[in-house]
């Protein structure tokens, strides 16, 4: 199944976007008497995208782009008279590929879990899920910043309808709040992208304004003040999407009201659009801005970790608890990223994947309980382990993964992230220590929830469990089949995270770290373009063998590197990369 040629890979990448889009139209326009086909078509498409995404991820290497397709989309004017070029440029690289695989994994499961839950406006529902799928893949594979933005915004529309039509009692308010909140942030990001592209055209001496990611992420010459402001502009859009404390207030409501599939995709993939945005755009495009704001970001991250965890503690609604846990968990993710050390970044990406799997799985299990008991209130539920042993097994497994039990996936990323924060020169031990308290709190609220729902005397609302929709008291075979892949992923990534990090680490180092290191080395030189760009590759490739040799303020030390190797095994060292563009 590994794509043999680049043409095949390109076909696969485009298929990820256009197949769900096409299927969405087909599903929507199905005649009424064929309504039963809609879920099956959606599931088939979901399985196909998974089967396409997984080999694509396995085929990505540390360097270079896989399955590149580049075509001009909107071209006005030319080099002589000046103009504008927006390209349809998609490709996978080692940073985006794991997220594409995660999306590919969660989509079919989200579709499958809706089979019994969705009973009205069925065709529309699956059409919107498929449209959302196309948007999510588009975000991760876009190599043109404006194309990224188009997909980024496009994902709002399907999710708006998924929450607003099929959500809980307060769905319309939740949908509106979600849409407007995220839209406000992203329009400011849009202004930032525009400004950056115009400045870039000016700096590179071209009169055609374009948004190519490679050009923008190798750009030099922006002043520190500009970068700092641009970072704030990017922050507005991405931080709301993450959601980053204190801009998280839309999330619990949206999560609680969304249908199960919506919550799974929202937590599993859509929140990653924000963190991916930070990693892919904020850090390499405006590295000086990132360095400048890193401490503030660190503060907000640990505030979010602790605040989110405390909020979880007092919830009685299981789904809301899982929703708030996302705020806490994504705080860890951002903490790792803004430690600005290589393994912090890779821990942060791992965290994105692991959070997507464990939280997605938790939402699935909560959804399954809700379908049977029509409540998520912990005061009304209890001792379900007696009646639902299989469900109990899965819930406990995912809870343990979420709180970072060693051997399961959450542990690796959580530990790496905290370790990075502790060792970082921009952040420091204090951040690591406070962040670690989040793990403790996480264990408390998660186990507390599991204890109340699963163990103790049996408590059920009257007239439940409701098995009218073809459900059984314990999980059905379909539901087990939905959870098994996630359980496998939880264990597999726990014991062998290198399957992701082997190609991820060098790519992160090359595309992100070098830019950030260069910016940190020349913090306030506004136009130090020539020297920095010329010397960066050399410095960074020397970094591992002679750390901290020339600069006192280097943000990467030998101890850090050893710590990473201890963590990942003896030969987890990162291969050296040739200098030059990626």
């Amino acid at each position, binding site marked *: 199944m590994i794509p043999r040629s680049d043409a095949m890979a390109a076909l696969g990448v485009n298929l990820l976007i256009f197949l769900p889009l096409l299927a969405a139209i087909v599903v929507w326009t199905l005649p009424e008497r064929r309504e039963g086909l809609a879920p099956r078509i959606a599931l088939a498409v979901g399985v196909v995208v998974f089967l396409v995404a997984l080999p694509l991820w396995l085929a990505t290497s540390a360097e270079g782009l896989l399955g590149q397709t580049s075509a001009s989309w*909107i071209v006005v004017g030319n080099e002589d008279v000046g103009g504008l070029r927006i390209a349809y440029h998609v490709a996978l690289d080692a940073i985006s590929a794991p997220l594409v695989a995660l999306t590919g994994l969660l989509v079919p499961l989200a579709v499958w879990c809706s089979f019994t839950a969705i009973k009205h406006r069925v065709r529309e529902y699956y059409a919107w899920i498929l449209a959302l799928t196309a948007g999510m893949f588009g975000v991760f594979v876009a190599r043109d910043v404006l194309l990224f933005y188009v997909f980024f915004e496009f994902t709002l529309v399907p999710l708006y309808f998924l929450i607003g039509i099929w959500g809980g009692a307060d769905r319309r308010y939740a949908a509106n709040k979600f849409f407007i909140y995220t839209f406000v942030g992203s329009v400011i990001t849009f202004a930032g992208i525009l400004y950056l592209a115009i400045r870039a055209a000016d700096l590179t001496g071209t009169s055609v304004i374009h948004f190519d990611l490679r050009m923008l992420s190798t750009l030099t010459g922006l002043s520190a003040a500009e970068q700092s402001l641009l970072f704030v502009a990017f922050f507005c859009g991405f931080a709301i999407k993450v959601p980053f404390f204190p801009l998280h207030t839309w999330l619990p409501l949206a999560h609680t009201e969304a249908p199960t599939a919506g919550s799974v995709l929202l937590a599993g993939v859509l929140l990653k659009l924000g963190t991916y945005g930070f990693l892919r755009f904020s850090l390499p495009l405006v590295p000086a801005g990132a360095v400048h704001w890193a401490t503030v970001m660190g503060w907000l991250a640990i505030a979010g970790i602790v605040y989110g965890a405390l909020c979880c503690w007092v919830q009685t609604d299981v789904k809301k608890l899982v929703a708030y846990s996302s705020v806490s968990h994504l705080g860890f993710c951002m903490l790792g990223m803004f430690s600005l050390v290589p393994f912090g970044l890779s821990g942060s990406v791992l965290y994105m994947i692991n959070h997507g799997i464990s939280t997605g799985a938790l939402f699935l299990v909560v959804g399954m309980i809700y379908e049977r008991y029509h409540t998520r209130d912990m005061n009304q539920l209890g001792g379900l382990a007696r009646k639902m042993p299989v469900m109990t097994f899965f819930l406990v497994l995912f809870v343990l993964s979420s709180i970072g039990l060693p051997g399961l996936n959450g542990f690796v990323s959580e530990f790496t992230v905290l370790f990075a924060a502790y060792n970082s020169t921009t952040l420091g031990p204090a951040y690591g220590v406070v962040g670690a308290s989040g793990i403790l709190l996480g264990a408390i609220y998660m186990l507390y929830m599991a204890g109340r729902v699963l163990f103790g005397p049996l408590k059920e609302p009257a007239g439940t469990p409701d098995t009218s929709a073809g459900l059984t008291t314990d999980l059905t075979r379909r539901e087990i089949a939905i959870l098994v892949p996630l359980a496998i992923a939880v264990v597999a990534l726990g014991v062998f995270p290198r399957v992701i990090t082997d190609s991820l680490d060098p790519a992160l180092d090359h595309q992100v770290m070098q830019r950030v290191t260069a910016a940190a080395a020349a913090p306030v030189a506004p136009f130090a373009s020539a020297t920095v760009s010329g010397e960066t590759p050399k410095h960074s490739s020397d970094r591992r063998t002679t750390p901290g040799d020339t600069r006192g303020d280097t943000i990467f030390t030998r101890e850090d590197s050893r710590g990473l190797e201890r963590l990942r095994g003896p030969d987890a060292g990162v291969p050296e990369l040739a200098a030059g563009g990626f």
Partner: protein
Amino acid sequence: MPTVSAAVSLGSLLPEVLLAVVGCALLIVGQAARRSARQAVTWITLVTLIVAIVLVRFGVGMPAVDSSVVSSGLAFTSLTAFARMVTLLLGVLITLVSWACPREEERGEFFAMMLFSLVGVMLVASAANLVILFLALELVSIPTYVMIALSRSNPRAVESATKYFFLGAAAAALTAFGFSYLYGVIGGASLDHVAIGRVAEALADPAAPAHTIAVIGLLLSLLGVLFKIAAVPLHFYIADVYQGAASPVAGLLGFVPKAAGLLAIFKILTLTQWNTTEGTLFWILWIVAAATMTVGNVLALQQTNIKRLLAYSGIAHSGYMLVGILAGPLGDGIIGDGTAAVLYYVVIYGIANLCAFAMLGVLRSKGRPAETLRDVAGLLRYYPSLALLMALAMFTLMGLPPTPGFWGKLSLFGSALAAANLVDLHQKWIIALVIIAVLNSAVAAAYYLRVIAAVLLYETDEPAEPSERQAPLMGGLLCGFLLLAFMFYPSRLLAMGRSATTTLHEASQAVVAPAPPTEPVRTALAEPETH
């Protein structure tokens, strides 16, 4: 400069003449005793517009591009070509949408007035003389008063027509007053390079006696024209007028007066050589733009009547376009050229607005035309195509990517940022204006979403019913089709807008330095020869 005889200049007016003649004929046909003759009115209008499109498309009636017939008060430039094309195109859509809107015996007058109004827009684009410009602007406005009154039998229509008429007349008086000052500065009515030189000279020297006169003239004439695009502080009429008029006419009001007003602003600002990023003019435009979009959006937030909501959102859209006007045509390329972005945006806004009003015009709720959010609730279940068209129009107006409205905002705000990159003086203020503009488009999302939510999210047992007529539905579908086409292929329209503004670009650069006081005429005339 080629000398052109009167005969040629009449031939070059062929599309306008065709529309005007047919308009006069419709006045007669509409009164015919036979019912079938009266019913032919709409078909005649449609065919005329399509013939005119063909004429314009194949260049009939256009002398060589950019050759000016200044002596006759008209200059046929690429701006004319663009304005003709899009006006006729929108004219076709408006005809379809308002097909059955006026009563049968008044249809002749109604469509004649529509044709006259469209002629007015095309003439504004080619006006090269203050008098012609004023007359063309009035030719746009006066028929719209009549159309509003004719559009429904409801007394509110007459009320809104009267209101529009009196305020419009006052605004026209302001424009005329301003033009008279400009006449004094220029020493003639012609808007050619000589005029640009004189105005530039007057503006450049604050001590000169002509300076005050020039500033007053510019401000007054701009103020009068701002009424046409419903910019703050001359925006108060718009909600009442839209609400009183039938929906298709309200759709027309979103394009016809706006396009004419913006083209007139282009003409007036060309006189100042687009010195829009400096001095008084900058501050006037900055404050008007910021106030217009903010006021429009804040007022729209409070509406439950969709017609009023769209009216106030129309104010906000004028504000966005003023950002492009502030950026001016001086930068490079589509992103640098604010006026090209404005031309693109006004077309997209016109189509999306018309699409929304077409849907409202088609729907009837409890026997009355649909107007409020409640009236259109739950449409998706019963009439999915209408509901989706409404949603598409709203998403376009919202500027959500990748709708064509987003490409419009991209080029408008991009042009302002590019202008900020060029100037030193007010850089931060221009960037601040762009931030205000993007935040406003986010605020706008809140009320557009209310319409979308009503149509798509809510469910109802007694939905609005579409009328039996096919034509308005066709018009709406055509609007939707155009929006979809521009979503994936906006390049052509953007490029057309770009090439339309070359004249503005050249005119403002023709006299680079203020002409020497003694012989401004020679410098101004000599310059174009070198191009």
